[in-house]
């Protein structure tokens, strides 16, 4: 399973755009990049997933450069409720039983 590296923590203010970058130098050809969000006392929740270039949904955008060795989760205009831990996962569901290495994630603290 490809290992990922992300910042341990980040601070931001309400209304700002937040970009969290994840490094995955050993990503394999069949691997996808998936981000989950975890609030205190809750299980993680799926945010976004992509393979290459750019993916956007109602919550976030995911930017993946051509070499796929890193990816950036972009949260537009964050609010206090976006304070959470964000996990970057890399894996191929088919060949790894959808088993992911969650790591420690990035703790995002949004301030008023």
């Amino acid at each position, binding site marked *: 399973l490809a290992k990922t590296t992300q910042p341990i923590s980040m601070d931001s203010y309400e209304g700002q755009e937040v970009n969290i970058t994840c490094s995955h130098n050993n990503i394999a050809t069949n691997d996808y990049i998936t981000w989950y969000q975890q609030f205190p006392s809750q299980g993680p929740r799926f945010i976004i997933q992509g*393979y290459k270039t750019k993916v956007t949904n109602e919550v976030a955008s995911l930017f993946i450069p051509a070499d796929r060795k890193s990816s950036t989760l972009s949260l537009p205009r964050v609010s206090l409720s976006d304070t959470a831990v964000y996990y970057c996962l890399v894996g191929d569901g088919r060949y790894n039983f*959808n088993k992911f290495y969650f790591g420690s994630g990035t703790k995002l603290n949004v301030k008023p």
Partner: protein
Amino acid sequence: GAGVSQSPSNKVTEKGKDVELRCDPISGHTALYWYRQSLGQGLEFLIYFQGNSAPDKSGLPSDRFSAERTGGSVSTLTIQRTQQEDSAVYLCASSHPPGLAGGPPVVQYFGAGTRLSVL
């Protein structure tokens, strides 16, 4: 139910006792996963079920840990002779079966977890 349900939400036990944690997955999800999360840490994979079988038990930390799933639905994680280092939040997730050829990983849906405290 609408989501993954875990019970109990909190469990306090004495060292050496056995505990059972229950997970009720989303209806129709054939895949089920157990994870462990220690305070302030990431998730540690424990075991994966597809239907009633467990093709991947690689994450179980010792032979005191076991899990079963019956009827392709409810799963029970059992910890025998609990130790203080077993104290953690135990999370369960379910999903549709992993992996169409060349397709993306399926989304896992998590319960709120069971917080286990071993005194």
